[in-house]
């Protein structure tokens, strides 16, 4: 009988994994791993991470940020938590796929494994509750939570994978030398997305507090946690020095409330709809067993709290925690079902668990839709990139001199400007307002207001000593980053031939044709969407200013 139970568990676990992989990476990546261009990339941040991984692959390390990422500035320290990029590059080499495919695939992979890891944590409490908890995880691939993946919150999601595994390591704290697991996983969290380490510390505090109140906190447990955290600080100290001298200065903590995340659609607790009844039941059930609270519930409480810390200064970071709420809170969900039905069914076994697992899987995958029960919503799109722009960007990266300067005129997708970094060259982008104004005034100009796109989320820093970092942008005139640019000073000028507002593309083509009147300006690349011109007389009068 026991063997049958175990087999059933494994069978349904495999079925669930197939479902998660299918509705997650399967649907979003068009049932392929390898693509001809970054596929399913929906926002600038996705390209930000993809390009950084590519730059690390080119450089062989992450000592410096590539100049085309750091606004043309050389020797800018690589300040982003490096772990996701390194494993993506290694996986890219091994699997023989491009970094844009490897990094995206790994984000999905770790999201699915997070659900599996949470299952095994809950299973330590109760196998039936664990199995009934699983279906809630389907919602991580449902809009709006899905934007955590499609909009590029990848380092945070990887760090949350480690956070769940960190809970697993705490659950096994009684193992001999268990501080090793704690140290490795906590360090990995710091090097994936440092803010999650703060949430992990909140979880540890809650864990210790509950142990203390229930008088079950032993000296050994405290010792193991402290040793583990201490070793992890040593292991990640090189990066922590960078983090504290760059990110913490550029984005210091402020106690302010951000009830709505302006960066995109957010997930709110009420979005669980009717499922909230079961989740609440699970919460009540766990509170009732406060003194013997299992670690899966402590993690769920900590992350429930963490997801609300947008009201206490954590802003975006708190909203990022919510991307995995369906995984963290799944234990409340499973326990809620279990507790409510226990009033009716006294002797519980798998015969009750399996049908409930199937029912909730059917409901949450949306095979049967019930109002006010959230469910998976199929989102398919090839994303922002297309084969034509990709061909143009890769042409620039492979066929132009390393120090070439590129100027991008208007393109519908260029607002998500991190994708332009795939040119692997220092580049400027025309200011859309000035471009439209010039068109309205029917002028062809030599000087256009222009942006210098690049990544300055944590500002741009140079390092002159172990603890000495200098912020570069304040030392540059503001015109360096945004101002009037002479388009004749650029080696290559890129024009889009098509647009959702075709008049903008026509204006592009008019400027291009004006440039081509000079014999030192030649067309070096063209496809159905993009033209690239090369200017062989840098600083000359490459265009006649006139009205049309």
């Amino acid at each position, binding site marked *: 009988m026991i063997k049958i139970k175990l087999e059933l568990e494994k069978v349904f676990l*495999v079925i669930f*994994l*197939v479902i998660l*992989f*299918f509705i997650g*990476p*399967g649907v979003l*990546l*068009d*049932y*392929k*791993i*390898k693509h001809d261009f970054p596929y399913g990339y929906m926002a600038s941040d996705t390209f930000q991470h993809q390009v950084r991984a590519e730059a*690390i*692959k080119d450089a*062989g*390390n*992450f*000592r410096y940020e590539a100049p085309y990422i750091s606004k043309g500035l050389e020797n800018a320290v690589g300040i982003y938590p*490096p*772990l*996701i990029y*390194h*494993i993506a*590059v*290694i*996986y890219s*080499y*091994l*699997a*023989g*796929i491009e970094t844009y495919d490897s990094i995206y*695939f790994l984000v999905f*992979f*770790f999201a699915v*494994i997070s659900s*599996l*890891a949470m299952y*095994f944590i809950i299973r330590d409490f109760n196998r039936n509750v664990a199995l009934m908890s699983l279906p809630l995880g389907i919602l991580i691939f449902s809009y709006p939570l899905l934007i955590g993946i499609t909009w590029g919150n990848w380092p945070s999601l990887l760090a949350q*994978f*480690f956070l769940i*595994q960190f809970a*697993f*390591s705490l659950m*096994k704290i009684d*193992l*001999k*030398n268990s501080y090793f*697991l704690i140290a*490795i*996983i906590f*360090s*990995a969290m710091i*090097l*994936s997305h440092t803010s999650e380490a703060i949430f992990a510390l909140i979880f540890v505090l809650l864990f210790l507090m509950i142990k203390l109140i229930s008088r079950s906190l032993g000296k050994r447990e405290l010792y193991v946690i402290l040793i583990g955290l201490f070793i992890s600080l040593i*292991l*990640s100290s*090189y*990066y922590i020095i960078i983090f504290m001298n760059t990110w913490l200065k550029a984005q210091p903590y402020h106690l302010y409330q951000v009830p709505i995340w302006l960066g995109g659609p957010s997930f709110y607790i009420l979005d669980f709809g009717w499922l909230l009844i079961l989740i609440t039941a699970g919460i009540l059930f766990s509170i009732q067993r406060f003194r013997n609270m299992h670690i899966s519930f402590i993690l769920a409480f900590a992350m429930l709290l963490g997801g609300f810390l947008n009201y206490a200064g954590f802003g975006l970071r708190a909203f990022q925690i919510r991307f995995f709420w369906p995984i963290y809170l799944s234990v409340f969900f499973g326990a809620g079902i279990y507790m409510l039905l226990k009033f009716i069914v006294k002797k519980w076994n798998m015969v009750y668990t399996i049908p409930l697992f199937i029912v909730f899987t059917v409901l949450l995958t949306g095979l049967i839709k019930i109002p006010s029960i959230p469910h998976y919503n199929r989102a398919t799109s090839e994303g922002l990139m297309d084969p034509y722009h990709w061909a143009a960007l890769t042409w620039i990266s492979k066929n132009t001199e390393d120090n070439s300067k590129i100027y991008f005129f208007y393109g519908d997708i260029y607002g998500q400007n991190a994708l332009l970094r795939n040119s692997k060259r220092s580049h400027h982008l025309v200011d859309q307002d000035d471009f439209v104004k010039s068109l309205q005034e029917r002028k062809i100009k030599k000087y256009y207001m222009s942006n210098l796109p690049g990544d300055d989320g944590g500002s741009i820093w140079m390092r002159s000593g172990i603890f000495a970092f200098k912020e570069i942008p304040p030392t540059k005139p503001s015109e360096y980053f945004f101002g009037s640019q002479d388009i004749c000073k650029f080696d290559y000028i890129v024009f889009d031939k098509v647009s959702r507002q075709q008049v903008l593309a026509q204006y592009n083509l008019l400027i291009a044709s004006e440039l081509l009147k000079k014999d030192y300006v030649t067309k070096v690349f063209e496809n159905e969407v993009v033209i690239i011109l090369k200017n062989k007389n840098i600083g000359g009068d490459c265009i006649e200013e006139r009205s049309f």
Partner: protein
Amino acid sequence: MKKEVSDLLKKELQYIGLLFLLALAIFKVVFFKEDFIVLLRSVLSLFWLFVLPSYFILLYWRENLEFIERFVIGIAVSAGIIGMSSYYLGLIGLNIKYHIFLLPLALILIGMSIIKKDIKF
């Protein structure tokens, strides 16, 4: 003791083989538009990077953790150690392209050396 560990190793490496086939089958279903060679190489890479290194490292806790538990937490242990080591080795000057075989292999050897005294070859 030595025989027990050797038997365990044989048995669990078979489990890993079965899990590999299962993962390949799942990938074949999910990524049905993909070439088989790409799928095979992707799954092999996942196992080489995230399964095998931690399997040998976590053998240390073989008596306290079930195989499947070691498998799941092992993915985090491998990803963590390989990601961190790769970052630092890159900073020291060893190009990342050399890490792809070096790091997993080093972890496997470290893991085997930890349990060496318990293995009968």
